[in-house]
């Protein structure tokens, strides 16, 4: 049963116009239905009000078997040439938003991300019923804030030949209460950074460089950015739970990330080398919180945030066998890429099927438990 009601919000600081977005690298919604677009190429974060505020209480599944074919048709190309850069679900309307580009045909390395290859230039909206349209970014209410000192556009990747580090200027965005946190790479000597700023945007954005111990590599690292993170209260303290390439799980005290300092995280798990964490989502099963993480080379990893909170150790030495730390449960579902909380019963995911097609699937929260 779908109940619709109109919720109107007027966000201060926004103006009407067409934002000059150079790349739709990262997507994130806040609870008011404002979409945050991380623009790595432009070095900015845009808050856009798409006017998508009709509340939906749909609790059904949505499955689209061959998502890339449909996207390809809209982009005038074949399924093989479509890339999805990010996915986010508007918590009010349950409309799904995808940042998309053409260019998958040249994706030849597991170490590349879509943002390395192309600038996503189009936003596609999928309704809970599966209707697909373009979400226009023209003549809308929006505000923008520039990242102070993002990684220089010309800096080349040390080991990804031909790739520029700028594509990782913004790797993830989370919204927590009245603040947004942006993970990515800065132009500082210690490049990995987390920016934070209140929303509605004010003039200042704080930047903290971050450092972690990488268990699989056996060393402290400052140049690899957070790949996926989310805020969570652990032991009465707001933490950012962050996953990195190859695949440490780290906590940062959010309170330390607001005063332009160099901050060290606490490595609480190591999930192994050769893997990109792609997405992280918080959900409830029988009233209890769990975190689900999707990966490029590992299955879904499910862990209980209370296990993170109660983990007293810290990984500060090389991890033999690559796996250590907080308890986690690998869950079935290979090929799962993007994750987003969809409705009270389901998590939405994109999944590469054995046929090679990319499906939009609904994962039942009821079944996702350790």
């Amino acid at each position, binding site marked *: 049963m779908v109940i619709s009601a109109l919720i109107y919000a007027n966000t201060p600081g926004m103006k009407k116009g067409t934002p000059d977005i150079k790349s739709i690298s990262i997507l994130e919604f806040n609870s008011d239905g404002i979409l945050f677009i991380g623009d790595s190429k432009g070095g900015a974060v845009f808050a856009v009000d798409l006017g998508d505020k009709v509340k939906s209480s749909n609790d059904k599944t949505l499955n689209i078997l061959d998502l890339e074919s*449909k996207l*390809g*048709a*809209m982009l*005038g*190309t*074949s399924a093989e040439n479509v890339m999805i850069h990010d996915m986010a679900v508007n918590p009010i309307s349950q409309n799904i938003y995808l940042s998309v580009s053409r260019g998958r045909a040249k994706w030849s390395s597991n170490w590349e991300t879509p943002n390395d290859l192309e600038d996503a230039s189009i936003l596609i909206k999928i309704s809970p019923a599966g209707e697909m349209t373009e979400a226009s970014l023209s003549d809308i209410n929006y505000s923008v804030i520039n990242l102070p000192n993002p990684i220089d556009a010309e800096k080349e990747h040390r080991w990804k030949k031909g790739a520029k580090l700028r594509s990782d200027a913004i790797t993830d965005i989370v919204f927590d209460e009245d603040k947004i946190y942006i993970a990515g790479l800065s132009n500082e000597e210690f490049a990995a950074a987390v920016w934070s700023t209140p929303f509605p945007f004010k003039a200042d954005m704080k930047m903290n460089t971050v450092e972690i111990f990488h268990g699989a590599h056996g060393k402290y690292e400052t140049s690899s950015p957070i790949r996926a993170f989310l805020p969570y209260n652990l032991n009465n303290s707001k933490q950012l739970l962050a996953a990195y390439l190859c695949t440490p799980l780290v906590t940062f005290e959010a309170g330390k990330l607001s005063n332009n300092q160099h901050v060290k995280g606490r490595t609480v798990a190591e999930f192994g080398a050769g893997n990109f964490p792609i997405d992280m989502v918080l959900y409830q099963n029988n009233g209890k919180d769990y975190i689900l993480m999707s990966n490029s080379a590992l299955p879904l990893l499910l862990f209980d945030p209370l296990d993170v909170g109660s983990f007293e150790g810290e990984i500060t030495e090389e991890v033999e066998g690559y796996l250590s730390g907080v308890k986690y449960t690998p869950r079935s579902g290979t090929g799962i890429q993007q994750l987003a909380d969809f409705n009270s019963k389901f998590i939405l995911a994109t999944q590469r099927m054995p046929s090679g097609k990319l499906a939009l699937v609904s994962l039942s929260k009821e079944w996702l438990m350790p």
Partner: protein
Amino acid sequence: MNNVLKGGLGLLSYLLFTGGLIGQDHFFLIQKDLQEAHYGEIRSSTLRMEAIKEMTNMTTGNFSSFFSIKTSNDMPSVLGSYIIENNRLVFQPRFLPDPSINYQIEFSFKQLSKLTNKDFGQSVYTTTFQFQNERFKETEIINFYPNEDTLPANILRAYIHFSAPMSFENPYDFISILDFKGDTLKDAFVEIQDGLWNADRTRLTILFHPGRIKRGVGPNVKQGSIFKDRKTYQLAIAKEWLDTNRNMLKSPFNKSFFITPSVRLALHPSDFKVKILREGDRYRVELCSDKILDHALAARMINLRNKDGDIVQDAEITSRTNSILIMSEYLKRGENYILSINPELEDVSGNTFISAFDREKNEQATSAVNTIVIPFKIE
């Protein structure tokens, strides 16, 4: 009923049965030239004014319901926008066509009638089209003027010629000059955001900051001149600059040049000499000078005229180091010709026949200089 009438009725029945479904390639005009700015656009045939009027406030969704482009019939329509131009409905795709796709194009007056509740007939026009499958020809820089390796320190402007139209990006995001230490020069250009282009965006004029070139002017006093004498510089153009089809250049462009002292003298006819060379049936006329002339101005300010003063057809003016080459197959042996030069022709430092660009305070410009005329005869 005779056989002709039976045949006519049969044809009419067939047409009625098919509902007027016509595969009409000539109904659609498709811009299929890769190098054109409107590559990928699909236009309908000219439409009746009544139909145009109904389309005035239509949404993209309305348009795509009767004028659709699809990768296959069971898929959503290709995203794009619709405009009305010269009484045709034009579809502008959001992305460039994919040469691997056979696009299904349909214009349905039947659907238009239904949408508008007006009678525009029941015809449905369809066609399929696959855009060029050959390798796209990458845009490249085909010329840079002045093309000399030594340039005066007070050079005012230069021209970059591209093989195809370029996009509307800020050119100065892609052009830089490195000094002899490898540092990028700051404030070397007058940065006109969208660039100073010719009509088809294949020639960019870049202006060196005249305020830093002209002596005694604020920027020159504050920052000094752009270039230092007897030093080598390198102009670099990045490959990432997009052409109008949003493809990068074929390769980056680099040009090194050695800076010589500023040239602050007005041009004079004695600076030029005419040489006549024969190549087969054609006579090559070279206008030689040690002045480096502004290439674009030379092309339109130097004319080859016959004895009657008429501009010779087919004259071709190109710039070479220390000369302007003019070649024409119409030059006849034994005939008299004239090279006429507009006195406002500039060298690369902005000096004309009338005055130097940057003259001394007490120096007067030469008044009312007439067209420079250099007569010669093909012997």
